[in-house]
C-alpha cells in the first residue's frame, strides 16, 4: 500500500484555485519533496493531507484513510511540523515533549526522543530562550514523539542560519534511515535536492514535474533544480 495517494486534489479560496488538480503518490519509506515558490499551493496540499482542510474536489488517502474524516485516528500515526507554528514563550523543552507524548496512545519514550535530538542539555530551558535552530529541533522532536509512520515537515529550515540548516538536514536524513516516510515541503531547491528521493514541483496549484531531482533536471535540459523550476514555471505563462 502507498503511504499517500492524492488524486486530482482541488481547493479554492474565494475564487482562486490554490490547488488545481494535483495527483501524486508517496511510497512507504520514501522521502517526497514538494517544492515550489510561496503561493504555489504547497501548504494547502499539506493541510489537506493532515485533515486541517477539506478538499473541494478529488480524493486524499493517507495510510489508507481519508484525513478529512479520520483526522484524530490518523494523527496517532502521522507527525507534523507546521510552518511558523510556535509554543508559549515560557514552556520548557522537557515540559513540551512530556505534554505532547501524553496526546498519543503509543508514544515514543519522550526522554529518548529528547536525547536523540540533542535536546537533553536544553531540557529546562524555556522555548522563548532557544535559538532558531534549537526551536526547530524541538518542533521536529515534537513531530516525532508520537512515534509516527509518516512525518510531514512544512518549511523546515526557513529562517535558519546555514549551520542550523545543515544540522536539520542531518536529522532528516537520520529519520529516513529509520524507515519513516517523510513529506518535506520546501521552497529551497538545494534542500529538496539534498534530502528527497522524489520531488513534486508545484507552481500555481499544479504539479509541473514529478520524479527524482536528477530526472527533473535532465527532462528540462537545465543545469540545476532551480533553473529547472523556472523553465517549468515559465512554460505555460
Amino acid at each position, binding site marked *: 500500500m502507498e503511504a499517500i495517494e492524492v488524486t486530482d486534489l482541488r481547493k479554492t479560496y474565494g475564487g482562486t484555485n490554490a490547488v488545481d488538480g494535483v495527483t501524486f503518490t508517496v511510497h512507504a519509506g520514501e522521502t517526497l519533496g514538494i517544492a515550489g515558490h510561496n503561493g504555489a499551493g504547497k501548504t494547502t496540499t499539506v493541510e489537506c493531507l*493532515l485533515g486541517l482542510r477539506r478538499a473541494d474536489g478529488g480524493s486524499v488517502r493517507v495510510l489508507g484513510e481519508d484525513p478529512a474524516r479520520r483526522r484524530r485516528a490518523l494523527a496517532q500515526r502521522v507527525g507534523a511540523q507546521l510552518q511558523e507554528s510556535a*509554543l508559549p514563550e515560557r514552556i520548557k523543552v522537557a515540559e513540551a515533549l512530556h505534554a505532547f507524548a*501524553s*496526546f498519543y496512545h503509543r508514544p515514543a519514550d519522550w526522554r529518548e526522543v529528547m536525547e536523540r535530538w540533542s535536546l537533553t542539555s536544553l531540557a529546562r530551558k524555556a522555548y522563548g530562550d532557544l535559538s532558531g535552530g534549537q526551536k526547530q529541533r524541538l518542533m521536529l522532536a515534537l513531530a516525532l514523539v*508520537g512515534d509516527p509512520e509518516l512525518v510531514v515537515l512544512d518549511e523546515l529550515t526557513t529562517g535558519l542560519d546555514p549551520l542550523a540548516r545543515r544540522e536539520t538536514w542531518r536529522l532528516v536524513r537520520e529519520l529516513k534511515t529509520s524507515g519513516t516516510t517523510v513529506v518535506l515541503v520546501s521552497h529551497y531547491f538545494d534542500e529538496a535536492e539534498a534530502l528527497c528521493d522524489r520531488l513534486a514541483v508545484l507552481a500555481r496549484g499544479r504539479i509541473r514535474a514529478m520524479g527524482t531531482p536528477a530526472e527533473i533536471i535532465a527532462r528540462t535540459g537545465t543545469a540545476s533544480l532551480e533553473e529547472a523550476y523556472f523553465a517549468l514555471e515559465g512554460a505555460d505563462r
Partner: protein
Amino acid sequence: MKAFTALTTIELRLLLRDPASVFFMMAFPMMLLVLKRGDSGAVPGYIAMISAVGGLGALPGIVAGYRERKVLKRLGTTPISPVLLLGAQLVAQVAAALIGSALLVVAAIAAFGARPPTNLPLLAVAILLCSVMVCALGFVIAAVVRNTRGASLIGMLVEFPMLFLAGAAVPREALPDSLRAIGGFLPLTPGVDVLTAAWTGAAALFPMMILAGIIVAGTAVAAALFRWE
C-alpha cells in the same frame, strides 16, 4: 484525561511563571489590604478583582496568542482537540484565582485578625463561580478579537472600569449615584455580591443564578464565534 492533566499542569505553571499574573493575582491584593489597614470588609471585593485580573486581564491575550502563534493549529495535527488547551487554560485560571484568594484570606486572618469565613466550601464555590464567569467573558473577547495585542487591550479595557464600578476595588456605596447605577449592569457586580455574602456564610442565590447564566451565555457565544485561525 492524561493529556488534559498534562496541559493543565503546564498552563498553571506558565501562569505562575508570568510575573504580571503573580503580582496582580497574589501580591497586589495583599498590598491593597495593607493600605486598607486590614479591613476585612474589602476582602470579597479583592477576591473578585483577583478573578478579573486572570480571566480578563490575562486570558484573552494568552488565548489569542495561542491562535496567532499557531499553537492551536499545531495541536490540530495531534490526536487531541485544541479545545482541550482552552479547557486547561480555564482550569489553570480558576486554580490561580483560588490560590490568590486563599493567600489573601490567610493574610487577612493571620496578619489583621479578620474573623475566618464560617462556611469555607460556600466561599470556595463563590470564588469558582466568579472566576469561571470572568473567564467566560475573557473567552468571548479572545473569540472575537483577532490578534493578541488587541485581545489583551480589550480585556483590560473591560476589566479596569469594572473593577471600580462593580465594587471590587472600592465599595459601590462610595461611588456617586450615577456611577453606582452603571455598576448594576456589570457582570462583576453579582460576582462581588456572591462573594460578599459567602464571606459572611450566606448564599446569595439570585446573583449566583445570574453568574451561572453569564457562564452559559458567554460560553455559547465564545463557542459560536471562536476563530481557530
